[in-house]
């Protein structure tokens, strides 16, 4: 059985198709693999040497790196380029590290005020998709390759004679792209622009527009809030500018930086239906179905108006809000209806939040999406040319109708990264360039303007979506004076940049270079929050609320895959869900009590019916889910994502409801089918089993006992009979603050990108063989129905007294004078005794040749970081404290004859973490941050009683419960 990808003349062997998730023990595959893979790899290495678009692909137009100096000055030395990440729902500043002209690592841009150096898991994983061999590589017409000029000619002919043209784009268009779209709509006869964005907070934006009288968004300022109440808003996970939210939220929880006499933390109350990372970070959490959230909002509003103190959880929460007036904030999740948003708007008004904990952004980075019915009716009336850019309606539309509508257009053109479900239905499928190959700009708010420059010329015969529009507009409107001077999209972006930001500058060339260098231009702007139309708000409130049902459905975007756009990204598929630790699948999460009520076990497949939509989906038992609530995630069940993402999970788009609250449903029916489906988690046990693993306390406890660890009776190691080792040089150590860590997983993907960690696939994850060097352990504590959640990132502890080192029979793991536990890959024979003897189980073993097994094409090898060995079969590996970065810093310091400054070495995990939960540095340096953290009264070593003497300190988790509310005991129970 062979399959042929249309753009590729090489037939794909059946084993390749199955390579991603086949049982490796199948005999047939094994025998075929040995012969074919040898040939393939011989061919592959030749291809890499000769044919594959390789190392040096300078973009056509001038790009500017962060540091002065001619480009490509030193082969092998990395250069950093500022750019903008535009693949996600919110644009973030990013720094792209390129070695020999190809991007290998992404960081946040420290100059960018919104996310700074922080990055998200999806941002980090962008490297993977750049080199994805499943990308569409050349234009197709009805599945057959066609040269660009011919495709353009046909499309232009159709556009010229068209009476009705529809352009569907995603919502996350930057200012230049929006300007281009406008121009195109003007130039093309009978053209209309529609915006399609699956996971969007449409009802919230609409409510704000009604209440504040103009389009825009409210941006929470968590660093100014003392009391925060979230009604279903996963602001630390998926809602809004998440990186900014995490940074701001964490800035007030960094207890290490606070003076011991002035310790303070905000208090977060979360009321939600499913357990999210935001709920996990909460000081108080309540479970509630979506209908109950609406009721609660009313209750809060009523409670704030009266002044009488009362008892009970909600009453205390209201009192807390009231007392924190001016520093309080209430948020409502995007899935809730307009009535709740109006209520919350009024609540925030009562709390004096506007201008303090809530800022106004009149120009959000996302366009409001068009109502689906509007798109359907326009298409149904017949369309001559339909253009779909960068969005995948055929996949995420609730009904298959859109597909027939697209096919019903006289000429349909789709442009995107992959030959996805939508592009497959279009006449023309045009390849789009990747974010890292693109020019663009973004203005998340009036004060921040960031530019996106490519770091590599397009690997394939792709072009940017906006470039297509420019080309077509130039031909359709040849007399437009502005466009005639422009050679390409780069020129358009540059022109717009000048117009918007430097209209009068004489030295624009220098400004442009500087903009490219830093990636960001700031303009002072603090637009005031518009006055509220209270009457309109009251009218919205009266429109009613979601009816309650025995079962209520919540559809949420996936924490990594989002709405399916990243489905073919192996790194993101294998990133465990922060709460459930589920990989490679989505499921319907229900509480154990609900499961018991319906006689469901985990893995039972049920038929889930909500309104008109039906899906068959496996059940996941998730403590912390509200009883009667069912939470499902978008983005799975793709059919044309690529070899990684196809047939993974279940598409829940049919469950999306018509009406104002598409992500909620209360007429939900469940029927147990006679089938089971294996769900794979990377962590199976969630209880700490009374062991002192994550130590926790309350803020008041910490205030009273600055040496919190002693107060918690933590067992220290006994005396050591061996003399202290003769350490020399900087003593590397790490500290992780468990209060700040929210479990987002950016560090995990950053480590994977930096250290060439392979993806192993679902079956290997089921056998507990996933290769992440850094994992985040998640523990439930307390009430099994509404547990407290603790996250604990686990890198290699680099024990001074490492149990792994003694037992390796061939000395493949050794210790250096600076305190690092070293792994010598080429000496390892793979007895795995080191892993058995590691009490933390941080070591990972290459049970198969994972790097080669899941390699689909040689182009993926370009993603490797050349500074890190790629490990082969039979070899142990583990976190190295990013020794390649340590060495780089050492060389630089040595060349300049200075000691390594504190902060010069940043491990990949530390750099990515939006919460700043990880610090790394030299313990011997009296002024280093890590030393200060190690000296904290909250610092302890994990399993210290074993006398492993790890170099990683954990800072105890501090919660800030309200003193009037029950069970705020500390300790590790």
């Amino acid at each position, binding site marked *: 059985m062979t399959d042929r990808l249309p753009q590729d003349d090489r037939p794909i062997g059946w084993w390749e198709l199955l390579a991603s998730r086949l049982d*490796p*023990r199948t005999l047939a595959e*094994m025998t075929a*693999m*040995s012969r074919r893979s040898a040939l393939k790899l011989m061919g592959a290495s030749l291809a890499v040497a000769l044919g594959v678009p390789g190392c040096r692909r300078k973009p056509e137009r001038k790009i500017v790196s962060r540091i002065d100096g001619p480009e490509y000055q030193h082969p092998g030395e990395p250069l950093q380029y500022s750019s903008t990440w535009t693949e996600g729902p919110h644009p973030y500043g990013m720094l792209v590290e390129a070695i020999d002209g190809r991007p290998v690592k992404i960081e946040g841009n420290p100059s960018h005020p919104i996310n700074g150096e922080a990055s998200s898991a999806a941002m980090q994983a962008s490297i993977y998709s750049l080199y994805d061999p499943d990308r569409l590589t050349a234009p197709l017409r009805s599945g057959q390759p066609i040269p660009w000029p011919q495709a353009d000619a046909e499309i232009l002919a159709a556009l010229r004679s068209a009476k009705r043209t529809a352009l569907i784009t995603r919502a996350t268009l930057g200012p230049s792209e929006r300007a281009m779209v406008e121009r195109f709509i003007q130039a093309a006869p009978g053209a209309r622009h529609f915006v399609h964005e699956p996971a969007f907070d449409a009802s919230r934006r609409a409510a704000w527009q009604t209440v504040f009288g103009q389009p825009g968004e409210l941006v929470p300022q968590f660093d100014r809030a003392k009391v925060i109440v979230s009604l279903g808003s996963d602001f630390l996970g998926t809602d809004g500018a998440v990186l900014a939210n995490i940074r701001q939220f964490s800035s007030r929880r960094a207890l290490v930086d606070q003076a011991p006499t002035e310790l303070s933390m905000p208090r977060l109350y979360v009321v939600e239906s499913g357990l999210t990372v935001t709920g996990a970070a909460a000081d108080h959490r309540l479970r509630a179905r979506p209908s109950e959230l609406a009721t609660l909002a009313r209750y809060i509003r009523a409670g704030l108006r009266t002044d009488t103190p009362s008892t009970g959880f909600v009453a205390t929460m209201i009192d807390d809000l009231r007392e924190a007036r001016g520093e309080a904030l209430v948020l409502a999740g995007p899935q809730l209806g307009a009535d709740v948003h109006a209520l919350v708007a009024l609540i925030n008004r009562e709390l004096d939040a506007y201008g303090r904990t809530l800022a106004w952004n009149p120009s959000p980075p996302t366009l409001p999406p068009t109502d689906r019915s509007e798109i359907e009716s326009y298409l149904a009336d017949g369309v001559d040319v339909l253009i779909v850019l960068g969005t995948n309606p055929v996949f995420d539309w609730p009904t298959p109708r859109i597909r027939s509508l697209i096919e019903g257009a006289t000429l349909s053109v789709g442009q995107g990264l992959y030959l996805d479900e939508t592009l497959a239905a279009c006449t023309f499928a045009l390849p789009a360039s990747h974010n890292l190959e693109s020019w663009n700009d973004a203005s998340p708010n009036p004060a921040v303007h960031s530019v996106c420059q490519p770091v590599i010329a397009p690997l394939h015969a792709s072009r940017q979506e906006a470039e297509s529009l420019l080309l077509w507009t130039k031909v359709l409107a040849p007399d437009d004076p502005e466009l005639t001077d422009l050679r390409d999209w780069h020129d358009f972006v540059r022109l717009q940049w000048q117009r918007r930001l430097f209209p009068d500058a004489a030295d624009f060339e220098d400004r442009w270079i500087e903009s490219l260098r830093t990636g960001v231009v700031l303009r002072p702007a603090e637009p005031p929050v518009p006055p509220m139309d209270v009457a309109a708000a009251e009218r919205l409130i009266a429109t009613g609320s979601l009816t309650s049902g025995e079962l209520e459905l919540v559809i949420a975007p996936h924490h990594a895959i989002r709405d399916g756009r990243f489905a073919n990204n192996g790194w993101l598929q294998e990133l465990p869900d922060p709460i459930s630790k589920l990989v490679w699948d989505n499921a319907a999460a229900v509480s154990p009590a609900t499961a018991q009520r319906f006689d469901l076990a985990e893995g039972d497949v049920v038929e889930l019916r909500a309104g008109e939509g039906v899906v068959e989906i496996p059940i996941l038992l998730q403590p912390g889910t509200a009883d009667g609530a069912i939470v499902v995630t978008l983005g799975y069940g793709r059919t044309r994502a690529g070899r990684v993402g196809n047939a993974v999970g279940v598409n829940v788009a049919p469950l999306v409801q018509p009406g104002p609250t598409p992500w909620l449903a209360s007429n939900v029916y469940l029927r147990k089918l006679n089938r089971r489906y294996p769900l794979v988690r990377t*962590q*199976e*046990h*969630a*209880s*700490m*089993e*009374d*062991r002192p*693993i994550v130590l926790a306390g309350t803020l008041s406890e910490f205030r009273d006992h600055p040496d919190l660890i002693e107060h918690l009776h933590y067992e220290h190691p006994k005396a050591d009979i061996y003399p202290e080792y003769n350490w020399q040089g900087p003593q590397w150590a790490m500290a992780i603050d468990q209060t700040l860590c929210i479990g987002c997983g950016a560090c995990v993907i950053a480590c994977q990108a930096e250290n060439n960690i392979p993806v192993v696939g679902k079956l*290997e994850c089921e*056998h*507990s*063989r996933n290769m992440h060097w850094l*994992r985040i*352990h*998640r*523990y439930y504590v307390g009430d099994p129905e509404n547990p407290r959640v603790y996250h*604990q990132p*686990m890198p290699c502890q680099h024990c001074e007294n490492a*149990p792994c080192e*003694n*037992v*390796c*029979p*061939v*000395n493949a793991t050794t210790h250096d004078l600076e305190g690092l536990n070293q792994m010598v890959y080429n*000496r*390892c*024979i*793979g*007895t*795995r*005794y080191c*892993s*058995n*003897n590691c*009490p*933390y*189980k941080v*070591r*990972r*073993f*290459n*049970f*198969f*040749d994972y790097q080669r097994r899941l390699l689909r094409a040689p182009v993926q090898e370009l993603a490797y970081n050349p500074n890190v060995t790629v490990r082969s*079969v*039979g*070899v*142990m590996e583990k976190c190295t404290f990013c020794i390649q970065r340590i060495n780089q810093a050492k060389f630089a310091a040595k060349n300049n004859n200075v000691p390594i400054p504190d902060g010069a070495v940043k491990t990949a995990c530390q750099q990515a973490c939006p919460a700043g939960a990880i610090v790394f540095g030299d313990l011997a340096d009296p002024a280093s941050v890590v030393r200060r953290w190690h000296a904290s009264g909250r610092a302890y070593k994990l*399993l210290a009683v*074993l006398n*492993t003497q790890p170099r990683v300190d954990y800072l105890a988790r501090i919660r800030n419960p309200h003193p009037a509310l029950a069970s705020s005991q500390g300790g590790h129970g």
Partner: protein
Amino acid sequence: MTRIEGTPLPTREALVLGEVDFRRLDDDINRPLESFPTLRWWAAFAVTSSMALMLLFCLGLTVARGVGIWGVNIPVGWGWAIVNFVFWIGIGHAGTLISAILFLLRQRWRTGIARFAEAMTIFAVVCALIFPLFHTGRPWLAWYWLLPLPNAHGIWPNFRSPLLWDVFAVSTYGLVSLLFWYTGLIPDIATARDRARHPLRKVFYGVLSLGWTGSARAWSHYERAYLLFAGLATPLVLSVHSVVSFDFATSVVPGWHVTIFPPYFVAGAIFSGLALVATLIIIMRRMFRLQHVITIRHLEIMNKLVVATSLMVGYAYLTEIFIAWYAGSLYEYFSMTNRMFGPYAWAYWIMIACNAVFPQLLWIGRVRRSILLMYPIVILVNVGMWFERFVIIASSLSRDYLPANWHYYRPTWVDVGIFVGSFGLFLTLMLLFVRLLPTVSLAELKSVLPNAQPARRARHG
């Protein structure tokens, strides 16, 4: 004690039954060598060699694909392979006990079974060595990197690692056992050489007999060499399995880090080895009609040893339970309760039943002397001893310090194939042994015949 006039002196039960003389013994022992294998032998050989072929196939697959086709994972880095390794090494110890230790203790009754037991040791060590080599991720490098070979890089293996101690211990044990066994064989091979008619047989046994003349001097050297080897092999019985137990005892894993392991393992090794000797020798004596040479008395004595070692092993189980509570470490305590009531409880209770409970039936004389009744017990002993290692390895690794790392271990068909295949290899070697070499040490056996000491016989009448 006072002797009552007229009653005969108590005599020991004869070790060889019936009217036997040297010639008859020669014929009896050499018959399997000199006759063409029966259909039964060929059938057995066909079965065992196909099992051995499966072993080769599975090992080849493992090397080609990676050790991932086994059931091991992180946290359980060792699974069936290391259980099998300890199992096979343990089995070998009974052979050395019988042939070396009992020799030094002048237990004459060992003569009937010593050679067979020693052969079992050799073959068990061969089977055992497969596992530490092939369980590594890169066996094509492991086989020589584990040896302290001088090299240009100046890199030695890590002498602090218990796995390396294993390399020394097991290779020493294998070598000494082989030499001991071979030395003991020389006079008997010479007998076969002298009896051989076919030129090929003459050459074969001639070369192997190293020119044995049978002179008094040769015998003197032989006796001394044999004694020295027995002396060398004896401490190995205690040390080798102690060193193997260090793989576990010197680690930090709760449930492994237990000081009772060395004596516990040694006792267990002897226990399982004796049981396998009994299992195999019961068949062998029947096949080759050697019931008069390997008598019920031999089997009864072995069963008494089985009971003794079963009690030692049972005591070790009780000690473990006590210490798990007494130590005051919640990790140790949990490892014990996890074994008894956790996901591997089924394996734990099989182990207890087969090792500590059923063998107690051997207190009963009737059971001890009845082949039909003792046979299932000794088979179960080996089952139980396999499970003991399995429980130690799998249950401790699958649930150690951090619950987030806990994961169950399950073998795959390759694991099972290798284990079954190792039995195939063992039995194939056994089958070849019984056809090519004398299974009973003729020379020693003749020395315990009444004919051997005519003067003494005359004295005791």
